[in-house]
């Protein structure tokens, strides 16, 4: 990829993370970023001529090696006074200290006899050991020793600047020793309960607090055993005490709790689905490790997480490693396919730990996914490092992020860099200093840097989110060179990002025409809009009606918001045309509608909802946003009366056919500017049909009507779908490419866009062929919209929309979306020109909108 994009990512990531406290955690290790911020022309220090796809490695908490220069040293006076300033703790120290002392504050809850005076400080001498068995004495002494060293650690750590972290380490150690002691008696229930009761009775308060701290820590690890141990005492203390104690022991305290809860990670744009490939076959006997479960919940902050479990056949008997691996890959692959079918518009991210990472990579070679994240990549094998010439991983095209531990046994940084040079996929790497294969940092590291695992995990998560955001929004990097208005971006995030991520997929898809079934079918706008409205990505789509009802004036606030940045750039007035296809629906739920209306109201604040009167009508909204010259926008010749001064085109069912006819009539015009159509078409398909940004639309005088474009679009779609096999996979830039202007980053991208178009067409075959009969006679039926809708493949909407099903009865069972938004964008100066340059390709915002060179000739003549 181009370095420009890289810089942008750096900047956006820095902007995004700059506010985060956690960013400061490792900021001294990120000098690289600062260089980029100040000198945006600089190449990454690790820029490699052979490995343009490998982005610079990011170091998290990697302590830089400092070279000692012995020659200079003699001249430096020995300083015995100045205390080297210790780094300020990266967490909220006050809060951390408060949670740290939780057990000490509430130690009284644990006491069975609260009225009795607490044991004196020299309680040890007063412990009455008469009647104790050898085992009891032994166990008691072991626990005592653990508690005493914890006491010492507490005292020694007191006043240290990172005391909470040091305390946490000490408590963990104490808990470990207590657990060892208890395990040495096999958690004998009688002995353990006796121990607990005795400790609670005899320990002095500070020691009891230490004991509770250890219990609290162990409760998080082995809850059932601890519960069993506490059972006896809870019967004594009564319900209140037991409740307080269980509340106290609920979960171990964490020094970084304040920081982490204040800086919650935000969802990824485009509501991607995160698939976690398991790193081994799971069974009920050996549940997934706590760490993996923890990460699963962490990742669910970024998007919907779907863990993929592989179950062994025959309880694993007679199953070889190879078979097992195949099985795992198969399971992940199947899941990816399933999700493609169910949520065709959703980006899929594969994440795996260790072997799971490898599985994810392999699946990404076979199936289309948006990105892969490898946590702890097993690079080293018995046969040496991966990445040999015949390694299928080298064929990866999916953007991939490797997160590895500095002290990992399964890979090391240098070998990873070599490997990264070889793979062609856009790849990034994060090295976590002092971490192992599971990205756990060592105790020494925690101690020396004042870190906790939770902080490291969050930083890793931030890096993952950063990378994925970059991938999902990459298209934006290609399109605009100016920094966008952040507010506008925020407001329109779901919509914008959805567009971006889909647009980004283009280069990916184009280069992998092998498995059409795996391709992501494009979805028209409606699906995307609705899914962004619906609360959960997986919630079964209900009947949703787009009762978009606005009486549109020449410009719409809601749309203006949507396109705010474009407005700012071109300073053109928006023309917003809407085609509404009302469908009577008896099953409409009022509540649903109200809910949706509320959403829409927010989007179009000034427009009264006249459609709300017809509560029994569901409508398909076709919104065409033409974004052209301010003057020419409203005064564009309206075709067939469909557009009049930007009024919404409201086509009832009965009128639909007529409208469609009119639209088809416009194909002549369309033919004159084939590239425009194809631009539009390819973009429509590619970007999922929602908010399609096609610039040339408004630049064609004859086809300013949005509906005509739609119509033409459907035709070209059909045409292409019937002829797909003949389409060259890598079409050379055709006549339209001459229009590609400087705005397109590189010719390569243009090419990518073209091939992309092919890819998407291939994908649409299954849908389109069923409509081929319709396509042959487009004039008589509302095929234009219909096809557009059906093509979108919004999975389950149509089935629950009887009205829609009626309309689409020709293609029974095919689904249709409810809203289609086509955005037409043009450059004001070129609105009226029809020259090749004027077709607007030059003004295209995204490289993907380059025309298919070969398809124009294949367009059927207008009826």
């Amino acid at each position, binding site marked *: 990829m181009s370095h420009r994009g890289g810089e942008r990512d750096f900047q956006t990531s820095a902007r995004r993370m700059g506010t985060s406290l956690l960013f400061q955690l490792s900021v001294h290790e990120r000098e690289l970023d600062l260089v980029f911020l100040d000198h945006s022309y600089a190449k990454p220090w690790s820029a490699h001529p052979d490995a343009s796809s490998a982005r610079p490695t990011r170091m998290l908490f990697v302590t830089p090696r400092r070279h000692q220069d012995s020659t200079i040293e003699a001249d430096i006076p*020995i300083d*015995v*006074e100045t205390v080297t300033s*210790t780094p300020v703790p990266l967490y909220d120290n006050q809060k951390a200290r408060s949670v740290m002392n939780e057990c000490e504050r509430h130690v009284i809850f644990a006491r069975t006899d609260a009225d009795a005076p607490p044991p004196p400080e020299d309680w040890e001498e007063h412990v009455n050991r008469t009647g104790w068995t050898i085992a009891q004495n032994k166990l008691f002494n072991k626990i005592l020793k653990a508690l005493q060293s914890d006491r*010492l650690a507490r005292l020694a*750590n007191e006043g*240290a600047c990172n005391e909470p972290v040091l305390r946490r380490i000490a408590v963990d150690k104490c808990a470990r020793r207590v657990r060892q002691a208890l395990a040495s008696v096999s958690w004998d229930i009688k002995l353990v309960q006796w121990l607990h009761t005795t400790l609670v009775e005899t320990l002095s308060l500070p020691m009891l607090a230490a004991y509770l701290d250890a219990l609290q820590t162990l409760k998080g690890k082995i809850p059932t055993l601890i519960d069993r141990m506490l059972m006896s005492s809870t019967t004594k203390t009564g319900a209140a005490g037991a409740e307080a104690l269980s509340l106290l022991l609920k979960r171990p305290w964490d020094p970084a709790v304040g920081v982490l809860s204040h800086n919650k990670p935000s969802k990824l744009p485009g509501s991607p689905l995160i698939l976690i490939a398991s790193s081994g076959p799971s069974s009920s006997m050996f549940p997934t490790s706590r760490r993996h479960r923890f990460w699963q919940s962490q990742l669910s902050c970024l998007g919907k997480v779907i863990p993929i479990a592989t179950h062994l056949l025959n309880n694993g008997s007679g199953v070889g490693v190879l078979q097992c691996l195949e099985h795992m890959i198969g399971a992940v692959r199947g899941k990816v396919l399933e999700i493609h079918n169910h949520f065709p518009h959703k980006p899929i991210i594969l994440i795996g730990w260790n072997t799971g990472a490898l599985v994810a990579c392999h699946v990404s070679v076979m199936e289309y996914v948006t990105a892969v994240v490898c946590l702890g990549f097993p690079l080293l094998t018995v046969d040496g490092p991966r990445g040999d010439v015949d390694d299928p991983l080298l064929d990866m095209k999916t953007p991939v992020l490797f997160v590895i531990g500095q002290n990992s046994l399964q890979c090391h940084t240098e070998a990873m860099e070599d490997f990264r040079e070889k793979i062609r996929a856009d790849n990034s790497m994060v090295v976590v200093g002092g971490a192992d294969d599971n990205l756990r940092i060592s105790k020494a590291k925690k101690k020396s840097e004042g870190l906790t695992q939770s902080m490291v995990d969050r930083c890793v998560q931030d890096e993952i989110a950063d990378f994925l955001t970059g991938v999902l929004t990459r298209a934006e990097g290609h399109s605009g060179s100016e920094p966008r208005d952040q507010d506008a971006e925020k407001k329109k995030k779901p919509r914008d990002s959805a567009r971006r991520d889909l647009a980004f997929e283009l280069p990916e898809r184009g280069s992998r025409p092998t498995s059409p079934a795996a391709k992501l079918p494009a979805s028209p706008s409606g699906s995307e809009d609705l899914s962004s409205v619906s609360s959960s990505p997986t919630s079964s789509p209900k009947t949703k009606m787009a009762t978009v009802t606005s009486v549109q004036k020449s410009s719409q606030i809601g749309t203006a918001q949507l396109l705010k940045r474009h407005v700012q750039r071109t300073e053109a007035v928006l023309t917003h045309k809407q085609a509404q296809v009302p469908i009577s629906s008896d099953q409409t739920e009022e509540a649903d509608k109200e809910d949706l209306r509320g959403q829409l109201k927010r989007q179009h604040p000034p427009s009264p909802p006249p459609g709300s009167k017809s509560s029994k009508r569901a409508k398909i909204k076709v919104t065409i946003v033409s974004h052209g010259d301010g003057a020419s926008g409203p005064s564009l010749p309206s075709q067939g009366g469909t557009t009049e001064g930007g009024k919404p085109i409201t086509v009832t069912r009965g009128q639909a056919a007529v409208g469609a006819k009119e639209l088809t009539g416009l194909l002549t015009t369309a033919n004159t500017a084939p590239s425009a159509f194809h631009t539009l078409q390819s973009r429509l398909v590619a970007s999922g049909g929602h908010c399609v940004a096609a610039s040339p639309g408004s630049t064609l005088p004859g086809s300013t009507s949005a509906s005509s474009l739609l119509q033409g679009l459907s035709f070209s779609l059909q045409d292409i779908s019937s002829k797909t096999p003949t389409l060259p996979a890598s079409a050379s830039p055709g006549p339209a490419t001459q229009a590609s202007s400087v705005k397109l980053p590189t010719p390569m991208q243009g090419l990518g866009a073209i091939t992309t178009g092919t890819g998407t067409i291939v994908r649409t075959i299954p849908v389109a062929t069923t409509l081929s009969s319709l396509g042959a006679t487009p004039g008589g039926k509302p095929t234009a919209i219909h096809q557009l809708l059906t093509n979108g493949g919004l999975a389950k909407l149509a089935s629950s929309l009887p009205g829609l099903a009626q309309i689409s009865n020709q293609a029974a069972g095919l689904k249709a979306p409810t809203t289609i938004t086509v955005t037409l964008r043009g450059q004001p100066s070129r609105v009226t020109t029809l020259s090749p340059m004027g077709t607007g390709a030059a003004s295209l915002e995204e490289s993907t909108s380059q025309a298919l060179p070969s398809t124009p000739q294949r367009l059927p003549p207008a009826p």
Partner: protein
Amino acid sequence: MATQYFKTVEHTSTNEKKSFKLKKPNYQLKFTLDGHTRAISAVKFNPKGNWLASSSDDKEIKIWEVYSGTYMKTLTDHNLGISDIAWSSDSELLVSASDDKTLKIWNVGAGKCTTTLTGHTDFVFCCNFSPQSDIIYSGSFDENVRIWNVKTGGCLRCLSTHSAPVTAVHTNQNGSLLVSGSYDGLCRIWDTVSCQYIKTFMSDNCPPVSFVKFSPNGENILTATMDNTLNLWDLKKEKCLKKYIGHKNEKYCIFADFSDTDPKLIVSGSEDNLVYVWNLETEEIVQKLQGHTDIAISTACNPKLKIIASAALEKDKTIKLWEK
């Protein structure tokens, strides 16, 4: 007191009448504090710098006012001579290490012993507070270092890796590290939390270590060995940076101290009855303080004022305050 232990060979200082040019700093005798009835073993300024505590073989601790050089009070409770004393960081507590195998924590204001720390099986020779003053470290002739809880008086830990009497214990400025020196010639650096030793320093030929101390910033340690040498070590690089020689130190555990005046100085007593002052950087002797009539066993630098205190053994029994 334990210093007597080494008095088997009585040392008479050769009278050095060598005239030497006094360079800066020019310390002059200000007060001579008389009061102890036996040899003085240690003098320590409190962190505020206004009091001086002295311990002696006469089982007493005396507190002196620094500015006026007046005697304030005496703390008595030990059964045998006292080898070392240390102030807590808030100047309210004192800990003393005695030949009666105990340590005592004193409330200076009340003038009373608050806690007695028992556990050592031989003379307790050195002691120090942690910076937070909630832990006391002590070294003993039983070759162990013990860690005590100030609040409860309980022994938290016993470190026994030295193979000879422990002569000095000291923590760095944040209390994370402990250094202990021993006659076995080793200086061990301990992690105070885990009680594992991290590093070991030793000079060539392993001369017995008579004294160790962290520098104020905790990045260097100063060691005195019984081969008439003081060494300044870099803790991180584990190498010797400076070597201070010229004095005489072969039999006694003589204290040394950093002086944060400008230029930085190293101050140590000597077995030739003088107090030597070195320039820390250049290693040269910048002054010799003459006045004591016996071995200047203990020296201390005032943390606030440019005052050096020195104390001498049996034949002298006085404390001298030197001011620049």
